[in-house]
């Protein structure tokens, strides 16, 4: 596995693992309560006590970053889990059934694919109200074709192989062939495509938060921190926006690199 990923791939995996670990251990590691205002630290610069300074309310930026990764990363992971499950199911059903079913599913996917993810999130948020559930549902719909289109063409190729015909001639049911043969053989492609979609989902979730439609204050979230940090930056304290923005970029780059490496070996 390490050899397949190569040096940069391993570095990306280690970085992501470290971020996840810090997030999980935030209650132990964070120097301050992330939600506790401290007027003496409002818009404070970097000091030994507050390495990344404080935000407009004086909350410790480093602690907020540690806690904020939770919503920033958990929401995209949820989005991709739902989108992968839905996309894979649609893809395999379309590839197996062929004909009209395939044509309808493919057109539907094309239509969904042509609409930017943010637009879906705006619609579901409008219906369900601002918050994580609306964002996740909207983006999951948006990312379904991203997984489904690639998996469908791989499934079509797989379905054409003689071993699938042999299983059919043996009297195996379509469900058994899809679950026992197609799905395991498609797994590497599904994983690679999902990981590379995850990178985009991180950006989209952060963008929706930035617009104020996702996670609601006072919960710590990187997207929100970029937004509130912009105000602070105008008032001379750029550390909050900079550090949150930099972390988002780092995570996206690492996830994309990992997806690329995983895709190459499949």
């Amino acid at each position: 596995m390490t050899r397949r990923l190569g040096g940069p791939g391993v570095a990306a995996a280690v970085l992501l693992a470290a971020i996840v670990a810090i997030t999980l251990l935030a209650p132990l590691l964070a120097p301050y309560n992330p939600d506790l205002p401290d007027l003496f630290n409002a818009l404070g610069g970097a000091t030994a006590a507050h390495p990344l300074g404080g935000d407009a309310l004086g909350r410790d930026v480093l602690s907020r970053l540690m806690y904020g990764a939770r919503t920033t990363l958990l929401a995209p992971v949820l989005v991709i889990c739902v989108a992968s499950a839905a996309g894979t199911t649609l893809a395999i059903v379309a590839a197996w059934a062929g004909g009209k079913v395939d044509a309808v599913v493919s057109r539907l996917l094309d239509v969904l694919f042509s609409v930017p993810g943010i637009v879906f999130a705006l619609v579901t948020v409008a219906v369900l109200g601002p918050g994580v559930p609306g964002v996740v549902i909207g983006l999951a719909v948006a990312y379904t074709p991203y997984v489904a289109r690639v998996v469908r063409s791989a499934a079509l190729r797989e379905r054409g192989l003689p071993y699938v015909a042999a299983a059919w001639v043996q009297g195996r049911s379509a469900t058994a062939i899809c679950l026992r043969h197609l799905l395991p053989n498609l797994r590497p492609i599904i994983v690679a495509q999902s990981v590379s979609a995850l990178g985009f989902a991180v950006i989209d979730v952060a963008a929706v938060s930035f617009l104020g439609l996702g996670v609601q204050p006072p919960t710590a979230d990187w997207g929100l921190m970029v937004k509130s940090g912009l105000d602070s930056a105008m008032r001379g304290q750029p550390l909050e926006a900079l550090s949150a923005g930099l972390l988002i970029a780092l995570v996206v780059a690492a996830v994309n690199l990992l997806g690329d490496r995983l895709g190459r070996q499949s």
Partner: protein
Amino acid sequence: MSVIEAERLRKVYGDATAVDEVSFTVAEGESLAIVGESGSGKTTVARMLLGLETPTAGTISVCGRPRPPGRVSAGERRRRAREIQIVFQDPYSSLDRLQRAGDVIETSLALHFPLTPAERRKKALDLFESVGLAERHAAMLPRQLSGGQRQRVAIARALAVEPRVLVLDEAVAALDVSIQAQILNLLADIREQRSISYVFISHDLAVVNQISDTAIVMRHGRVVERGNTRDLLREPQEDYTRALLAAVPRPGWKPTRRNAQ
């Protein structure tokens, strides 16, 4: 009694006719060869016999039971599976690359026979032995097996359901010469030991001579000649059959050019 009756089979894709008015029967225990070059429609005929393609016109009956087109119940599909099975050409893609050789056979057995796990394993190993594989091969993945061994697994998989007819679609074409002979002998042994009929799809006349009793020669979707394999190869009546024979390299043979096209 004939195990296969195919009557006036026809298969049209768009405006191309792949198979046209093809009729033949296969008697119990007989080995019929369908000979032809690429594009002759021989593989399409095989796929129609297996139900992998639906004939545009014509009828097929296997073991005396007609097979009209259309969806059938799961039970009926399993019943049909015990009538006719297939071995494909490419030993690499005809096995699931993630499935161990022993599991391939046990899955077939589980689908068709009520056996305890121990009985199933025993029977799978018996099948392995009958196709010249050893117990240690059961735990191997396809990529750990050679081409000849994979083809043996594919044959064992087909035999596991105890079919009356075995279709062999260029089943020895992709194998090394020394392995090809081993598989041809194995197929001959199987036919001696079980009451099974073969439909042997091939472009190789020498192989056809070795394995079949009767043969039909196809070209552009039609049957151009049919008869007893021996007679057909000794005294071909049609120009096309003669041209096919003339093109087979042998001692003293010289390649020849047709007229420039």
